[in-house]
């Protein structure tokens, strides 16, 4: 373990080129701190990314890094993880990269449960290409490519992930050092595909799109920080709780003091609960929403390979085929 390494040791010499005030700075800082916290080794850690603002991330982390092509980072990372399962492989993607052009790869990576730590920086906009609406933009988003407002229905990253068979889904806010740091450490520890949606503020093209719940002034009433096995409480002094309403098949907010028995306890292994939590509007559910481990793809791949990818025979043993003959 590199216990002496600090967040600073994971910073590169490269000048960071995100816009001043971009949420990516906060994420970078929390990620490097988390790497130091979990004792990551720079030489056995790899950041793989696609294209977009978020995908510049690998250049700024002092580990191995591979900035690939648009949407394809999960596919490249899958090959890498198969080649060397010992590596800690992080995939950094955005809402356009991961859910639009690369949606197919994300789906298959999640269903296979490849041991990748996938961070989706969701800012509900295409930043690098100057502000077009993205697959997570809310209907009616006014952008250079949708001056009258977008007409598409947005995709929910969480519902997409669970629908694809993801085994780990978590959420955090870019500037929430504690919440994001905790999620990152859990994502790192997960054996299999961990998928983390980070609400990231694009200060230039979609400023404050998440302000309704990220604003610190309203944080207590608008954020539900989940902990496995604990009641779903929020609000000032945890005065409010989440209850399941069997009439509407949806969640209600109740006064925690008046009806403590109604408040649900978070069970991160319950996929039905997870789906309802993902759709909860205010408060917004944060933290580990779903975690149900299963064998990671690379483990299964090696377990099913008769020689675990080792060469136990020579081509000379195979090359004759079943029938050969000699010409004198």
């Amino acid at each position, binding site marked *: 373990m590199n216990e002496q390494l600090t967040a600073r040791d994971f910073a590169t010499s490269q000048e960071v080129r995100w816009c001043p005030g971009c949420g990516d700075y906060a994420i970078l800082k929390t990620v490097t701190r988390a790497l130091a916290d979990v004792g990551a080794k720079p030489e056995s850690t790899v950041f793989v990314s696609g294209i977009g603002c978020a995908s510049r991330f690998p250049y700024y982390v002092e580990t191995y890094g591979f*900035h*690939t092509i648009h949407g394809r980072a999960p*596919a*490249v990372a*899958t090959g890498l993880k*198969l*080649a060397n399962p010992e*590596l800690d492989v992080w995939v950094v993607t955005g809402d356009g990269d991961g859910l639009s052009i690369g949606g197919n790869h994300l789906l298959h990576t999640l269903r296979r449960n490849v041991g990748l730590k996938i961070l989706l920086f969701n800012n509900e906009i295409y930043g690098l290409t100057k502000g077009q609406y993205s697959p997570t933009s809310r209907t009616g988003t006014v952008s250079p490519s949708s001056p009258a407002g977008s007409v598409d229905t947005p995709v929910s990253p969480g519902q997409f992930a669970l629908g694809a068979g993801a085994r780990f889904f978590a959420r955090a806010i870019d500037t929430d050092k504690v919440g994001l740091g905790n999620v990152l450490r859990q994502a790192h520890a997960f054996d299999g595909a961990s998928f983390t949606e980070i609400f990231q503020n694009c200060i230039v093209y979609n400023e404050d799109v998440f302000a309704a719940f990220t604003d610190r002034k309203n944080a207590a009433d608008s954020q539900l920080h989940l902990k496995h096995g604990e009641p779903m409480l929020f609000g000032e002094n945890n005065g409010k709780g989440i209850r399941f309403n069997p009439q509407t098949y949806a969640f209600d907010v109740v006064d925690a003091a008046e009806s403590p028995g109604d408040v649900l306890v978070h069970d991160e292994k319950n996929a039905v609960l997870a789906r309802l939590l993902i759709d909860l509007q205010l408060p917004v559910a944060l933290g580990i929403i779903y975690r149900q481990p299963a064998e990671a793809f690379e483990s299964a791949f090696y377990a099913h390979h008769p020689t675990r990818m080792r060469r136990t025979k020579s081509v000379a043993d195979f090359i004759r085929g079943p029938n050969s*003959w000699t010409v004198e």
Partner: protein
Amino acid sequence: MRLAGDSGDGIQLMGSQFAVSTALSGRDFATFPDYPAEIRAPAGTTFGVSAYQINLGGEPITTAGDAPDVLVAFNPAALKVSLPLLHPGAVIVLNNDSFTARNLTKAGYDDDPRDGNTLDQFQVVTADISHLNFEAVRSFGLSKSESGRCKNFWTLGLLLWMFDRQLEPVEAWIRRRLAGKPTMRDANIAALHAGHAFGETAELSASLPQVSVETAQMAPGEYRSVTGAEALALGIAAAGELAERPVLFCSYPITPSSPLLHRLTRLQELGVGTFQAEDEIAAICAAIGASYGGMIGVTSSSGPGIALKTEAMGLAVSAELPLLIVNWQRGGPSTGLPTKTEQSDLYQAVYGRNADTPMPVLAAGSSGECFDMAVEGIRVAMRHMTPVILLVDGYLSNASEPWLIPVIESLAPIESRPVPELTGDSNPEMLAYQRDPASLGRPWITPGMPGLVHRTGGLEKDYVSGHISYDPDNHQRMTEFRQAKVDAVAGFIPDQAIELGDDSGDIVVVGWGSTYGPIYQAARRTGASFVHLRHIHPLPPNLGELLARYDKVLVPEMNNGQLATLLRDKLGIQPISFCKVSGQPFLISELAGRIETERKGSAS
């Protein structure tokens, strides 16, 4: 071809109709009906097998042939009786429905020959013929036995698809023959069409083994029969052994590339892994990821799939990673002719990427040569740290030929530039891009190596440090470096040899890929010289000087003149194009004819 089954299977009728269609397709043939002695021999037994043998070809045929190249076996007994007669690499069509425990016992088989390795040296096509035929004629209200009698035409329909024959003459014959029995007439026609449609839907294609060099000329040594997919799979595994690295083969199913995936899954003990990706792009990206991680990444597809992989090839060029991309060329554009062969992806391989993105391109001339070119492809990829394209004519995937078994120990190890030693003051980012002066290949530094941590990717890199660089001079330098690297391959490949004929003269025929066989024979027959290219890009350095020694350069290709364009571009010569894009290989006679025509043109 030998058709074999029970006496009641309608074998003789089927054989004679295939003979008629052969005659109508302009091929010569001779036949040999082979009945059992008994009028009604017990069904399913070896002595009850009825057979019909036909020899066909573009060249004059004088006998019904000793060893059939195609066997249709309606039951295990027919297979058992006929198997010893076959050429290695022959095509065998089996009716799955007849391989019951009872029939296997009657034929004297202890184990099902479809399992195990009895049929390994053949191209086996299996179908539930009885069942599929029954479904095809169900609507005609026939009895069970009447339905069964349509089976021969169902199978004939499949054969006509596989060998690219017309249905119409056979259909016309059925109409005449069964004019008085309209229900049986229509049922047989329906069965014929259903068999044909089955072949088309399943994208079955077969190619007859082509022995291009006579037995008398075969070098001494140990031979086996091999298909292109088998040889390429063995070549990929051999390259892994020579490089002492595992191989990860990543692909997405596509005709006619899939047999390579299937073959490689049987070679896992050679340190080979296979990953079936979600699409063509994921396949090449996973292969790139594997190469980035230190395994030899290989992907394979056909033209449309290669098109999808194009952007990722640029990434491998930019990141200077080794990779082998196999393209089993088929007819296009778009989905085109998935089961028919072509050589029309040469432009795509050499010129078909955005920006200045040069890559080495190789081509295999025969099934056996797929082995050599797989080894060479991975050798080039690792030496120069570049993706390499290997072009193979699609039909070689399943086409068998006798193959002189290579001696692995005689092949040189495959190496990339050694990873530099770390010293106290070395900058790891600089070390990653310290390229070999001759090959321009960088050291293959992979994640997990301590002290060599660096970043790479698709953004333009600084030549020295690999950092992102928008510097104009650096981009100029990198563009020139990438071209110089591919050009450097020419310094490591042997001079172009003359395959056949004089080293100067009136005409030389230049070919690439699977036209090797017919050009070889045509050149031999006419006395023309023959040059066969295995390195397409870069071309061998002496090629221009070599071709300049002839008055005419004739370039036969199964495309619209792509190699001719390349030779004009790279050598500044004016070759004569001879193009054939029918999905069929060249005939020796048409090549010889063209050579003679060009000679007469020179003489007049």
